[in-house]
């Protein structure tokens, strides 16, 4: 299983509709609206890099998404 964080920069005023679209994408495990340089942080869990590409592709097709930055998780420690 491959996990990745996708950091999104949004055009102003599109967050709610974009999140409603993202909530329908199956491989997205978590969506967080954040303050600061990025507007939304998405955590994706996919079986292969090809599927990760499909997820980022779907996100980029959503109206209001300006830019995506993908960070693939290599190692993780969690409680």
């Amino acid at each position, binding site marked *: *299983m491959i*996990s*990745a*964080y996708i*950091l999104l920069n949004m055009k102003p005023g599109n967050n709610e509709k974009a*999140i409603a679209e993202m*909530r*329908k994408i*199956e491989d*997205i*495990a*978590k*969506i*967080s*609206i*954040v*303050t*600061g*340089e*990025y507007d939304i*942080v998405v955590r994706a869990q996919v079986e292969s890099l090809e599927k990760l590409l499909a997820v980022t592709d779907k996100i980029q097709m959503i109206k209001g998404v300006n830019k995506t*930055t*993908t*960070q*693939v*998780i*290599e*190692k*993780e*420690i*969690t*409680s």
Partner: protein
Amino acid sequence: MKIKFRKRHLFLVLAFSSAIIAAMNSGVDSIAGDLMNNYWVLSISCFILGFIVSLLFSCLLSIPIKGKSIGSQTFDPSFNRIRLITKQEIAYHALAGLGNSIMTIGYFALFYDPNLGRSPAAILPFAQVVILYLVVAESITEKDTPTLVEIQSALIVTFGAILGSISLSGTISVRALAIVFLIINPGSMLFSFYQRKLKMIKIKDKPNDSINIRLWNVVFALIFTCIITFCWSLYDGTNYLFGGLTASINYFGWLFIMATGTFFSFVFYIRALGIGKASIAQAVKSTVIIFSIPVTIVLSYYGYVDPFTTDPTLLIIKAIGMILMILGIISFTVTLAKSYVFIKVKPGYSIEDTMQKLWKIKGVNRVCAVAGPYDFVVKIHTRTFVKGYERIIRKIAELPSIKEYKMQSVLKEWENI
């Protein structure tokens, strides 16, 4: 298709559902307690039926429909089917089972306290003091020092529970308090704490499911209850084990209802434990006290427990207790702040070494070494943003390997649960 939920909403729905079922179940407990005259017999028979019911429902929920089990489509998406426990789970199950056994024996022992009159509204508040124990245990083991808000909330809930538990005659029983502080709450703490540990374990890359956890908890609790009862019987010269077995046949109907309610109440509670901290799940579940009032009124109407008090002073004290509890629960659940920290590391420093140093900082919930513009994505949980900055960000910035960091606070979050 999976739809994402606000994590906090699902957590509250699960914990409140568990509390409502537990309150209704407490009424059935009172009736079963009225039928049997010994808490050892009641505990044994309760776990025998608990095992039968848990096995029955776990098998039913394992039946697949369109490739997915009924349990995964209804109660817990992580549930696939009934299974044997893994080696990794044995120790946790043994401790959670021991906790459940001790807690249940203590809880039923309170039923036969003459000051409490088998009234759920008088008995249930006692058990809520466990929140204090959980806050202390979490601060020791989950590398998360309790904040002032957490300590205040735990104390408010505890004082509310004590006020709410004043018996109908206005007295507080020393024997009952001793059972609560020395038996029920330590048992309950073991139970909640290790059930949460079990829920956090991954089985074949999937979160552990609440249905199998509940089934195996009952198995271990039954074994421990038999051992404890047998030891007590040797000391006492009685045969409660046999008494429990015959009671489970004679009062099968009431015990079946009781075990069914307990099964679903705990399945919801365990799922809630997988989402939030044990102390917060317990705080929400404490509302069982409020839901137990209508149950007590119905039971007293049918003569199973003493009549509900009409003394205005006692009613005011109980109302103050309830209000304190609700305030404590609200402040417990609404004050959690989460943030992401994106970190770049200076060249010449080990990623693995930095990862371990980041993980050691209190309040850091997750550390991910990532490929991309940043080297780490760190998730932090705090009670306030000020504390997050003071205690966590400053420590991250002090690490010599950190070149640059950006903190982004989470305003809203949705998740597949």
